[in-house]
C-alpha cells in the first residue's frame, strides 16, 4: 500500500531555547506523490537527514505536521508508522542469519512461519539474492553490495507504506554505487512503494530520482525533476550544486519588457538575456551574476566577436569531454572558469592566451545573494 507523504510547515530546532539552538528545518512544506522515488539532496548539514529521520519518527519535530496519505503521523511512534528504512551503515544484525535479518519485521508482526518463508523468498528474489538465501550465511560473510541488498529486502518484506533510504550507497565503492543506484530504481519501480532517498551526491540524485528537492541550511531551495533543476535552476546555489556553473560578476545596463542587457565587469562584454532566464528582479545598475555551464562556453585560439581574453591554466582529459580551466582576469573573482569542449583543441596548450565566448541562448542571470553552499 503506497501512500503520499506531505509536510506542512515542518520546523526542527535542536537544543531549543538554549544558546546552542540550531534551526535544522525551516518551514518545510511539500508533498511526495504515491509511488514516487523522491530524492532529498543537499550538502552535509543541510537538514536532509533530519527530515528523513523525522519522517521515520526517529526524531521529533518542533512544529508543523507530517502526513502519510490523510493520516497525521507527526506524533505517532516510529514502530507504528509501517515504514521501511535502509541505513547508511546497513545496520544488519550480526547475530542473525540473512534469512532472520530479512524476516525480522515479519516476526515482529507475528506473521505465521509459512508466510514468513514465502515472503522472504519472494523479496530475496526481487533483490537478486536467491542463491545466497539457500546458503543463508551471517550478513558479515557477504560483500558490501550483497549486504546492501539484504538491507533493502529487510525494509521491503513487510510491504511498508513508505521506504526511506539514508545515503544507502555511501558505503559502496564507486563502480558498485553506479550499479546499485540503477538496481534501487528497478526495485522501487517493481514494488511501486513511495520512496525517499537521501544523498549529498547530485549525480546520484539526478540518476535515481523521479523528482528532487534541493536543501540548504534547513530550507528547500527548489523542487523539480532532474531536467528542471539542471536547465532551469531557480537560484545561483541550485545552479552550482546541480552540475557546475561558472558565474561572472556583472551589472545591469538596461532592461526592456522581454530582455535584460548585462555587462560583465571590467570586460565591457554585454550579453542580452531573455526575462525567462532572469532568476532575479533587476533594474538598471544592479549587481548580478551571469551564469554559464562549462559546456555552454567555448575557448578558441582565434579572436572572435563577443569574447573575453583569458589564459589556459590546466587542460584535463575527462573521457567524453575536455575541461579547460581558464584564468580570465585577475580583477574579477573567481579567477578561474571551467569550460568543457567536445574535443581537444589542437592549437591550444596550457599557458596559451585564448578567447572565451558564450552560447547566449543558454546563459542565465542570477541574484548574487547566497550562492555559497
Amino acid at each position: 500500500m503506497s501512500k503520499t507523504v506531505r509536510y506542512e510547515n515542518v520546523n526542527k530546532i535542536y537544543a531549543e531555547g538554549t544558546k546552542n539552538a540550531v534551526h535544522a528545518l525551516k518551514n518545510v512544506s511539500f508533498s511526495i506523490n504515491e509511488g514516487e522515488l523522491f530524492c532529498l539532496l543537499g550538502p552535509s548539514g543541510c537538514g536532509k537527514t533530519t527530515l528523513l529521520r523525522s519522517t521515520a519518527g526517529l526524531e521529533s519535530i518542533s512544529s508543523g505536521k507530517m502526513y502519510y496519505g490523510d493520516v497525521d503521523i507527526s506524533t505517532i511512534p516510529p514502530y507504528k508508522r509501517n515504514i521501511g528504512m535502509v541505513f547508511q551503515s546497513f545496520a544488519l544484525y550480526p547475530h542473525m542469519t540473512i534469512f532472520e535479518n530479512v524476516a525480522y519485521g515479519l516476526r515482529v508482526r507475528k506473521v505465521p512461519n509459512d508466510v514468513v518463508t514465502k515472503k522472504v523468498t519472494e523479496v530475496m528474489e526481487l533483490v537478486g539474492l536467491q542463491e545466497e538465501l539457500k546458503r543463508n550465511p551471517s550478513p558479515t560473510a557477504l560483500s558490501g553490495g550483497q549486504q546492501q541488498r539484504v538491507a533493502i529486502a529487510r525494509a521491503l518484506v513487510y510491504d511498508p507504506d513508505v521506504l526511506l533510504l539514508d545515503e544507502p550507497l555511501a558505503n559502496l565503492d564507486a563502480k558498485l554505487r553506479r550499479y546499485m543506484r540503477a538496481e534501487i530504481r528497478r526495485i522501487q519501480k517493481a514494488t511501486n512503494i513511495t520512496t525517499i532517498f537521501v544523498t549529498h551526491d547530485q549525480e546520484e540524485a539526478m540518476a535515481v530520482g523521479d523528482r528532487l528537492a534541493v536543501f540548504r541550511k534547513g530550507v528547500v531551495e527548489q523542487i523539480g525533476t532532474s531536467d528542471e533543476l539542471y536547465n532551469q535552476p531557480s537560484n545561483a546555489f541550485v545552479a552550482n550544486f546541480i552540475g557546475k556553473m561558472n558565474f561572472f560578476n556583472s551589472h545591469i545596463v538596461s532592461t526592456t519588457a522581454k530582455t535584460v542587457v548585462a555587462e560583465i565587469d571590467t570586460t565591457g562584454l554585454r550579453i542580452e538575456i531573455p526575462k525567462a532566464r532572469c532568476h532575479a528582479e533587476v533594474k538598471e545598475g544592479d549587481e548580478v551574476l551571469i551564469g554559464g555551464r562549462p559546456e555552454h562556453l567555448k575557448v578558441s585560439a582565434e579572436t572572435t566577436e563577443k569574447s573575453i581574453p583569458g589564459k589556459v591554466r590546466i587542460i584535463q582529459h575527462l573521457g567524453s569531454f575536455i575541461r579547460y580551466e581558464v584564468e580570465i582576469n585577475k580583477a574579477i573573482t573567481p579567477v578561474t572558469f571551467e569550460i568543457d569542449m567536445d574535443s581537444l583543441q589542437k592549437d591550444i596548450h596550457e599557458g596559451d592566451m585564448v578567447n572565451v565566448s558564450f552560447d547566449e541562448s543558454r546563459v542565465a542571470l542570477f541574484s548574487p545573494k547566497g550562492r555559497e553552499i
Partner: protein
Amino acid sequence: MSRKYSITENGAETSRIKKFFQKDFSQLIVFAIPMVFLAVFLLYPMGITLVRAFWKPASFNFKFTGWSLEGFRMFFSTRMYLKSLGNSIIVSVSVTLFCILIGVPMGYCVARVKIPGKKLLVSLGILPIIMPSFVGAYTWVILLGNKGVLRAALNWLLGPLGITIPSIYGMFGMILCMTLTYFPFVFQMSYGAFSGANALLEEAGMLMGAKRGYIMRTITLPLIIPSLGAAALLVFVRAIGNFGIPAVIGGNNYVLPTLISFAYQGDGDINFASSIAVLNVIITGAVLYAQKRIVAKREYETISATHTDIKLHENLGARLFAAIFCLIILVFSLLPQVTIIIMSFFKNWTGLLPVGFTLENYASIPKNSGKEMFNSFFLSVTATLLCAVFGSILAYITERKKPKGAALLDLSIMAPFILPGTVVSIALLSAFGGNSAFKMTGTYAILLISYMIRRTPYVYRSVSANLTQLNPSLEEASTISGATWFYTFRRVSVPLIMPAIISGSVMTLTTLLQELSTTILLYGPKTRTVPIQIYNKVLENNLGQASALSTILLIVVFAIIYGMNSRKGSDVSSALKM
C-alpha cells in the same frame, strides 16, 4: 482520525488519557528498578555515613550523639592514627610506582619483542589479580618469613653483597604483596596499548628521521598515557582499599581499611569509623581528580584508515632480555599460587620445607567449611546474576537514552568501584545496622546488596564500552520494522551486548568468590563465606586448611576464567577499565 473534528476541552482530556495508556511503559519500568536500588542502597547509605562522620564518637551507640568534629580531632591528634594514614599513603603510592615500573616494561616486551609463548604470558599474567590477594600474603610468610625457604636462598645469593631481606611483616611485605598482586592491571593495559597502537604513526616518525629512542619518547609513550593513567588509578584505589594483605602481614603497621574495621568491630564505634571512611574517600577522590586532570587533555582518538602490523624487535639481546625479565616477574607473581597448592597437602610449613604429607586438609572441608562453601557460591552467583541485569540496564540507560544528569548517574554507579570495600560496608552499616528501621546486619540480604553495589560497575563498564561501539541504527532499524522498545531490547540489544555482559559477569563472579574487605564487616554467624573462613584459619595459624580452601577457590576461579577465554569475543580486560 479524531483530528478532523474540533476537539473540545473534554475531548482533549480523554485523548490525553488514551495517549497515556497507549505509551510504551515497559521501558520506564525496566529503568526504574535499578535507579531505585541505587538511590536506596548507595546514595542513602553514603549520605548517612557523611552525616555520622560529624557525630560524636560513641561505642555501641547508634543513636544521635550530637554534632561534633571530635572524630576528626581524635584522628589527627593520635599518633597511631596519623601513622596509619601515612602508611596507607606510602603503601599505595609505592605500590602504584612499582606496578608501573614492572608492568610497562613487561607490556612492552610482550607486545613489541619477538619472544615465544606470548599468548601464554598474557593469560598467565592476569592470574595474580584474580587470585585472592590475602591468600598470597600468608604464603609470603612461608617463603620469606624468618625461616622461609626463599629468604634462605636470597640471603645465600645476596648476602655476600651485603643485602639482607627485610622482615616480611610490615611495610616491605605489604608493598611486595600488593605490587605482585596488582601489577597485572598495568601490564595488561600497556600490553593492549603497545600492541594496539597504529604502526603507521611510528613509521611516519621514522621516515621523518627520528631514531627509535626518540620515537619511543615522543610518540609511543605519550600515546599510552591515557591507558596508563587509568591503570595506575586502578592500582592506587585497590592498594589503598586492600584489607586482607595489611590484616595478614601488616603486623602493627595499620592502614585505613584495617583501622576502619577495628574501630567498628573492636570499639563498635560506627561514628568514628565513618569519620575515617570519609577521610579515605577524600584521599581517593583527590587522586581520581588528579588523574582526570592529567589524562583529560590527552585523550586521543586513533585515526586510522589502514592498520599495519607493528614491527617487533628481533635482535638476540633484546629477545633474551625480554624473555628473562618476563619470566622472573611471572615466576615471582605466581609463586604464592604454587606455594598454596603445595601447602594444602601438608600439616605445616614453618621451616625450610613443608612437613607431614596429608590429605586431611581436604577431607575435613565438608565438615568444617561446608556451610561456608554453600554461602560463598550462593551469594556470589546470585549477586552476579543481579549485577548482570542491573549493570546492563544502567549501561543502556546512560549510553543510549543519555538522560539529563547522565554524568551524575555514571558517577554514582562508578563510585563504589573506587571506594574501598570497608567504606561501602560502613555506609551500609550506618544505614541498615544498629538501630535502623530496617536492620539487616548478619543477613544474606546485606551481603548481596554490598556485593551488587560494589560489582555492578564491572558489567556496567563492560557493557557501556560495547554499546558505544554498537551503531544505534541497529536498534533504530528494529524500531522502524515495527518493534516496540522491549522487543528491540530483547531481540537486538541484549544479544549484541551479550559478550560484554558475560565478560563483566565473569569478572564479578571471580572477584566475589574471594571477596574479603566488604564481607569482613558485614558477615554474621550464618553468613560466613570461604574467604572469611580462610582468613580466620590464617589467624588461627591453621595454614593447612586455609591452603586447601584457597586451592579449591583457585581451581574454581581459574576454571571460570579459562572457560570464558575459550569463548569467542569475550574479553575480561574490558571490565577492568574505568
